[in-house]
């Protein structure tokens, strides 16, 4: 006697992105922690030394957060106006920040009051940074100048007046004490050398530059401005290498992953995109609720921190390895280990006669019902959409689908209709659910109008179908247009390898009985 063969649940292709190593890596973060700041978060900077606190510049304050705290461990509030660009020194002891009131302030991380005030700029200072030998500060301002300051004396060392518009970004070299790069709204990037009095290299970005990033090797520089992210080769004298256009609004912030293999860009279009730095393809994409202004990655990619225009700071921590494994196994408490090994660790002695017990197979609830030919119960006990569709398919194969759908009361019928309206437009399920919906209409035609709940759902179903038909018609139009385009440009072979799922979908819908679809039907069949 053969055993009962359980219903096969087909594995449907997952819609959307393909699972790659990158998606696995970048998806391995916990749900974000959201912290509300007082204003738009313009800058986030990590301390280079452990425990890697980070400074968040928002409105008139700079908050310092610890790696796991949700409350600021410290805050600097002595700004007269909006603060900009709070950055740590390489030893993590000092912090510098510009301000709307043109004064640059230097703080001790443990103190509260500014250690030094650098006055000289005439307009708001948006860029500040320490040079690599730690005793100088570089600043860039809206008065089109950038300056170098000496920390101990609080004196200005040099002024560069080469830009012709606001300087909104800049970065100093980590390897050379004299080099720094600025980006300006005059569309240019300039590399300055403190040993000479003017810029060494000028690169034309083509859009107002919003962010600049140096590679750890400092051979390449990345700039963001407008919708473009551009990569330049400094060793070749500022030759453009790549131009990326993956955002549809201004790119505001750039950041490299800890191993330097991935580049992240944040934009006002509320996306953060991850690029592979070898081929500069987008490998992953994060969505956020508001336009992203600033972005930072913790060392070892332990967390992704994003600041947005609505003042929300979103922090995503990486899942610990145990956590990422035990995602699905925690739902049910299992019987203890003792239950399973009971009697199984008994070693048979030499003369013992072994009686083998057949392994009992467990059937799911719907399979148990199907085995007993309780078809309606089987349909009701299937829960997930894939399972329900598989059970409907199985009932159709057994020729008993009509019986299983019939004889339902208002509640059961509305549940069924709810399921069908929810899943019918999914093209994976449509071939099974459309005949089932047809059958329901046939069976319950006589009772239409008796129950307001069911009627509402039927109207909704009709609505849904009308929408879907319109949608498909539009798609067909587009397809026709594309066909003419392709036919003129691409050799015939390519045309043949187009996917046929769309036309298949259409076919399924045209089969469905609707009053208004006659016209479309003709059109559709011609196109198919």
């Amino acid at each position, binding site marked *: *006697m*053969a*055993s*009962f*063969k*359980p*219903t*096969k649940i*087909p594995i449907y292709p997952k819609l959307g992105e393909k*699972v790659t*190593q990158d998606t696995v890596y970048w998806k391995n973060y916990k749900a974000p922690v959201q912290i509300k700041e007082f204003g738009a978060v313009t800058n986030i900077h990590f301390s280079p030394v452990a425990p890697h606190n980070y400074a968040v510049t928002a409105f008139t304050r700079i908050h310092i957060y610890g790696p796991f705290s949700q409350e600021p461990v410290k805050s600097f509030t002595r700004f007269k106006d909006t603060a900009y660009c709070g950055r740590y020194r390489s030893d993590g002891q000092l912090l510098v920040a510009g301000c709307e009131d043109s004064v640059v302030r230097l703080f001790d991380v443990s103190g509260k009051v500014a250690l030094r005030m650098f006055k000289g700029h005439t307009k708001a200072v948006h860029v500040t940074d320490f040079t690599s030998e730690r005793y100088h500060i570089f600043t860039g301002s809206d008065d089109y100048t950038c300056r170098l300051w000496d920390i101990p004396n609080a004196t200005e060392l040099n002024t560069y007046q080469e830009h012709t518009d606001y300087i909104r970004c800049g970065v100093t070299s980590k390897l050379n004490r004299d080099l720094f790069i600025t980006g300006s709204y005059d569309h240019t990037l300039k590399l300055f050398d403190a040993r000479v009095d003017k810029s060494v290299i000028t690169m034309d970005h083509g859009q107002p530059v919003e962010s600049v990033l140096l590679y750890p090797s400092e051979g390449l520089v990345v700039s963001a401005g407008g919708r473009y992210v551009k990569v330049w080769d400094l060793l070749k004298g500022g030759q453009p290498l790549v131009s990326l256009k993956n955002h549809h609004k201004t790119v505001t912030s750039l950041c490299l992953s800890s191993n330097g293999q991935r580049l992240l860009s944040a934009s006002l279009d509320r996306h953060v995109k991850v690029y592979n730095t070898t081929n500069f393809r987008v490998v992953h994409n994060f969505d956020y609720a508001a336009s992203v202004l600033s972005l930072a990655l913790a060392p070892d990619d332990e967390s992704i921190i994003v600041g947005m225009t609505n003042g929300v700071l979103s922090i995503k921590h990486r899942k610990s390895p145990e956590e990422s494994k035990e995602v699905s196994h925690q739902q049910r408490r299992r019987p203890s280990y003792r239950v399973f090994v009971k009697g199984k660790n008994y070693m048979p002695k030499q003369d013992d006669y072994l009686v083998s017990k057949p392994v009992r197979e467990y059937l799911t609830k719907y399979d148990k019902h*199907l085995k007993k030919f309780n078809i309606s119960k089987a349909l009701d006990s299937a829960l997930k959409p894939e399972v329900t569709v598989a059970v409907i398919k*199985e009932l159709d*194969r*057994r*020729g008993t689908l009509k019986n299983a759908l019939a004889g339902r009361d208002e509640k059961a019928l509305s549940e069924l209709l709810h399921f069908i309206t929810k899943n019918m437009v999914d093209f994976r399920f449509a*071939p099974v659910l459309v*005949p089932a919906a047809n059958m329901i209409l046939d069976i319950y035609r006589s009772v239409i109008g008796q129950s307001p709940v069911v009627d509402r759902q039927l109207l909704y179903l009709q609505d849904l179908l009308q929408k879907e038909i319109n949608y498909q018609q539009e798609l067909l139009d587009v397809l026709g247009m594309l066909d003419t385009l392709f036919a003129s440009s691409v050799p015939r*072979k390519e045309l*043949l*390898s187009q996917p*046929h799922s769309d036309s*298949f979908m259409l076919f399924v819908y045209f*089969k469905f009985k609707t009053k208004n679809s006659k016209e479309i039907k003709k059109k559709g069949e011609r196109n198919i």
Partner: protein
Amino acid sequence: MVEHGDIRVVHRGGIARYCRFLCERGIFCCCRFLLCGSGYEVKVFSTSTEECIHDLRAHTDLVTGVLLRPSNHLQAYSCSTDGTVRLWDYTDVCNRLMFAMMCVFAEFQLVAVHLPQSGDQLVEAREFSAVLSDVSSNPAATSFGRGGEYIASAKGLQLEVYFFKKQKPYRFFLKEDNKKGGKNTFTCLACHPKDDCIATGHEDGKIRLWRNFNHKKEYTYTTLHWHHSAVSSLCFTPEGTNLLSGGIESVLVQWRYNQESQRDFLPRLGAAITHIAVSPDGALFCTSHSDNKITIIRSSIQVSAVIQGLVKGDSVRTDLMVDPRSKALVLNGKPGHLQFYSLQRDKLLYNLDIVQQEYIHQSGLEQFEVVKAAFDAYGNWLATVEERKQKPTELELNLKLWAFDEQTQSFMLNTTISAPHEARITAMCFCHSTDSQTTVLVSVSKDGHFKAWQLAPATHTEGPSWSCDFVGAYHSLVPECCCFSADGSLLAVSFQEVVTVWSPASWELLTTLSQPPGAIRNLCFGQLTCSKYLLGTTDKNLLCCWNLLTCSLEWSTSMDVSLLLSDPFSENMAAFCCQAGCTDLFVFKPSEPRPLFSHKAVCLGKVTRAVFAPREKMLESCEETSQWLNHSQLYFVTQYMVNTQHNELVISDSVAMTPFSVLLGKRSQQEGQEAASSLLAERTQLPQGSAAVRELLQTPAHVLPSTSFLCSMFVESLLISKQIKRKEKKAAQYTTTSLWLNNTLCPKLSRQKPSLYCPTPILHD
């Protein structure tokens, strides 16, 4: 060492072997043996080992019934459509008695035959007395009751009971239809062994228990209902405590007598139950099924053994194929399965479940069917196509790819592609190249496309799986067949009248060939040295051969080829031509349009499927006409056989020579001549006497039969007789004439083969 024999056609797996095997009632003999009629013979099986112990062979037509002799349980009667009833001692294979009944009944009557007591082997029974006239032809509808007091028989809507003492029949009628529209027609009946009770099965699945039927008016019946369609067999256990019933649901139902609400079930027996039998002591039941199977069941309702022949399906929809690994013949088996049938051992190896769904036994239900299957060159991959529903809009198609698993030694499902095409798949083939790294499968469908499927490399989460590599079409014509060249560098796809040749490496259309008018029916590349030729047949009676080096037609000939296939082990091609209800076979090489071998009227009807199966050991025949069979054997199925039974035909030349076969073969030949059935003569031509002598002298003594047995023949073989020449002439004459006579005899001969190969079983017997 090889004899140059004639080429002949042998039926296999058919009438003589397993097909009819269970169509008759199996009966039990004292729990250890099971007898059943199988084609022209009665087989005795052991109930514990499932082995066939004896073949009781004497009938010359289909055996219709087997019955134990009540007075002696070591003897059994068998009856056959050849008009004889035979009595067997089934333990020592002895045909004791034969009653010849020479009368022909116009319609079925139940007659009582008085068996004359005599010592002769052949007895002609002349005394008949008709008991009941106009009985059902189904033996399940007639039964003796209560130690032979009465006999009950049912036909249509009438139940007739005849009491032997009173010499009086009682007739009971049922109405045509009851209220719900169920049919009341009787299908079978069984009489209670101890009680006055008759159980009848009906068309609508009801079972009625009749009592008090020795009164014309006051009879009663109770109705039991579980089966949803017709009850095909009923049987009481010897003590009468239980009633067994079965039908198309393939569920054995055990009803307690007098407590009918208590039932036991044995579900999922595999196929519709045709007969039920119970052993005399009631310890074992046996059910025979429509798919050529007997299940032996213990009285505790547990299956204890299964005897399975070549599975009889509705039709062979897949091609005949040979599994490159096991060299087994592969074709449709149980519904939704592929069966692997070993040709060498003539035994079913296993059934591979393709559909993997619970089979619902219900008539009129559309089931998934395996319609196409293909193996790759090494047998590592198996591709199957299953489809359901006849309407083209609701067609459900699944393409499944199975990988051979070394550990379990069977095929494991690797990839399922649902709806690979939008319409029915008409052809499918693997790339045969032996050196390439990737395996390519091409499927051709009525939706106007052909698709190439390729094994994608393993990803980090899952193993390798198949995906679509290329979709091809040609001027929106419908493709029909496809074929890969021997080295896998070319793919030919026929689009109605046009043959397109593609390169699988780049999927470029290389060239098109056509020979209008007439759509292409078959397409085949030449093998080995003839691999530059592409052969095609059209439905306008044309066989064309193109040379692919020049892209031009090499030769063509006008013949109505129904099937063309190439032998993968040699250059030869076989073409079956259907003419006037008969099929002719031509074997040729593509390089020359002259047939190597032709055989007129190989069989009746159209040949639908054929395959070349490799030989285990290569023959070294040098005769031109039989040389093409050196590497392989040709198996084919005709349309009539598909509808009625699974017959395969093999063309093989005669048995390999051993000293034993030289001697015994000769002996049987001589006997055959004596018995005036000189058809046997064609089987073996006598080799030169000196060769036989040499062979005899060189063979070790322990493998030879006793000297006394050999002596006379040995001496005779030394004589140069004139008879041999005459005999040869005769043999030649017979090969050209009636083949059907031939067919009936050949199975018998081929069955002698094993005993010729190894002498030990004979000695044991």
